[in-house]
């Protein structure tokens, strides 16, 4: 990808609000390690997704800064994938410390990891393919949708 800052932020929000919401909806019923009602699990899952989006905007600022050290001002495909590690870890730490608003009680690590990996891979794959088909100018305008 060759994003601009605006494109990064727009793409992040768009992907989580579409691919992220759909995949979360599909994965929740089969998540391992859950306790409590399905509606409670849905609520927790979507609050985590919201946290990923909000915190993610901060991450995008950092990525954009790091990208400035690259002559090509590009963001290699691999980085889009491996950033799952710091982002996942931070959300897990926030979750573990009870700092994600609205999420009460313990979330099992297996629940979190399964959901996070599925959503991350889904949005990464979508950004590297179908997104280009839906929005013909997306890749030529730094990831901007609007």
């Amino acid at each position, binding site marked *: 990808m060759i994003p601009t800052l605006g494109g990064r932020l727009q793409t992040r929000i768009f992907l989580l609000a579409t691919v992220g919401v759909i995949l979360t909806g599909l994965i929740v019923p089969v998540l391992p390690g859950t306790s409590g009602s399905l509606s409670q699990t849905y609520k927790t899952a979507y609050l985590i997704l919201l946290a990923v989006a909000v915190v993610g905007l901060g991450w995008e600022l950092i990525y954009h800064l790091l990208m400035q050290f690259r002559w090509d001002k590009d963001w*290699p495909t691999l980085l889009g994938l491996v950033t799952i590690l710091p982002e996942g870890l931070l959300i897990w730490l926030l979750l573990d410390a009870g700092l994600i608003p609205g999420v009460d009680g313990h979330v099992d690590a297996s629940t979190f990891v399964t959901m996070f990996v599925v959503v991350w891979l889904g949005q990464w794959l979508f950004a590297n393919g179908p997104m280009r088909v839906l*929005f013909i100018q997306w890749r*030529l305008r730094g990831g901007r949708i609007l």
Partner: protein
Amino acid sequence: MVQAAGIPVHDTSLASVGGGLGSFTLLDVLRIRGVARSSIRVLSSSDTPWQTWEYLTGVSQLPPQERIRSDAGARPDNIWGFPSYAMHEAWADKSPKLAYQVLVEPVFTDFFSPRAATVFATLEREARRIGYWDMLLKGQVRMVRRRVGGGYFTILTPPPGVTKSKRVAIRSQYVHLAAGYPGLKFLDDLQAFRETYNDYHHVVNAYEPHEHVYEILKSRQGVVMVRGAGIVASRILQRLMDDRERHRLHTQIVHVFRTYVTGPHGPSVWMRRDGGDGWAYQAFTFPKSAFGGQLKAQFRNADPAGRAELSKIVGGTTTPKLRRWQEQMRAGRQGNWYHPIQAVVDKVEPAGDGRGLISHVSGQDGRRGQYVSDFIIDCTGLEADMSEHRVLADLLQYGGARRNHAGRLAVGRNFEVIGAESGAGMLYASGAATGGNHFPAVDSFLGMQTAALDIADDLARRGFCTSLGPLRSVRQWLKWAAGRPV
């Protein structure tokens, strides 16, 4: 007046002049956006849209099986860039290695680049799909002139025997100009040598057939001077070095850099390009973001002076830092058969013994010297001025077009040629002639697609074609994937 002159007039809505990849990408986009074949004509002396490109890549030592310098997602046959050429080749070759390469590029491997053969084959498929040859009118375009009633006349000389008259006129509301390079220009000292001594054998341009150089070097040991520091110089060096290895030759290579880059360079830590051993390294012809990211936005938002300033930083001659080339050059330096030097060549003349050439050079430090070689290959790829191209020159003189600060055609954000409007008609341009405007990477696959999409957006506003929203885009992509006509 045209009819009175006995020139038959044919009508169409849009005429694309050129018939290379620039014309092809616009036709592809317009057909996908619902324009009928009968509304478009492409005027060209080429049989296929890739003819000129195939010729130029071939002579500059990029045969079909070699990989070109282009991104995986830049597919002139596929405006969506999905699946990328990397996935296409990985599937065709059953090679997970290529898929892995595009996954980890450029961090752990070199950037993936498609084979020239892949580009030819996919272009042919897409050309058939959009009915390219139904829209082709063969001939030499002489001029494009504005009509009194709006729109344009394009004057074409068809091949002998095809039409009764020597010329035909194409009347259209829109004209698209994708004329390619005006022509090649030789380095002054080499041009002087060729003209003075009438020797076109020992001094050659990388963009003209020069296979005899490699053949002669196979039969006897020789010295070749390579001049230039771009992708073509790299390709020529690779050919010389491959031949050396494959045929156990003893070719000596003197490589003259006018500007010798010793290391990373640039105005600040935020704008530093890799370099070394003479070369400025860059994966593609511009930093990647110039094709659609941050740098593209910066150019778009800058005023002409700002663009010129940016061009100074990101422009210039570069070559990709490929692992194989690095190894070959290292072996050459260690084996003392590859000699990179910094110098400006003042004069070239025949050696006294009747064999070979003497290049008189001076270095940056003022030192003068002489180098003897059997051949000189000019890889500088200098482009001739626009006025060397008949249609462009006519347009500048009579068509209202003007030059930008870089000496190319001044175009607006929709690639409309500024000053060449004609009533409700519009003249657009794309490709090399439009350098130096709001978009830097015009002379590339993605650049031509960018121009095509922006021109089509403007034409959609004028009611010539439909817009390309998500639904139509998905539908058309499915057709593309299935190989069904648009």
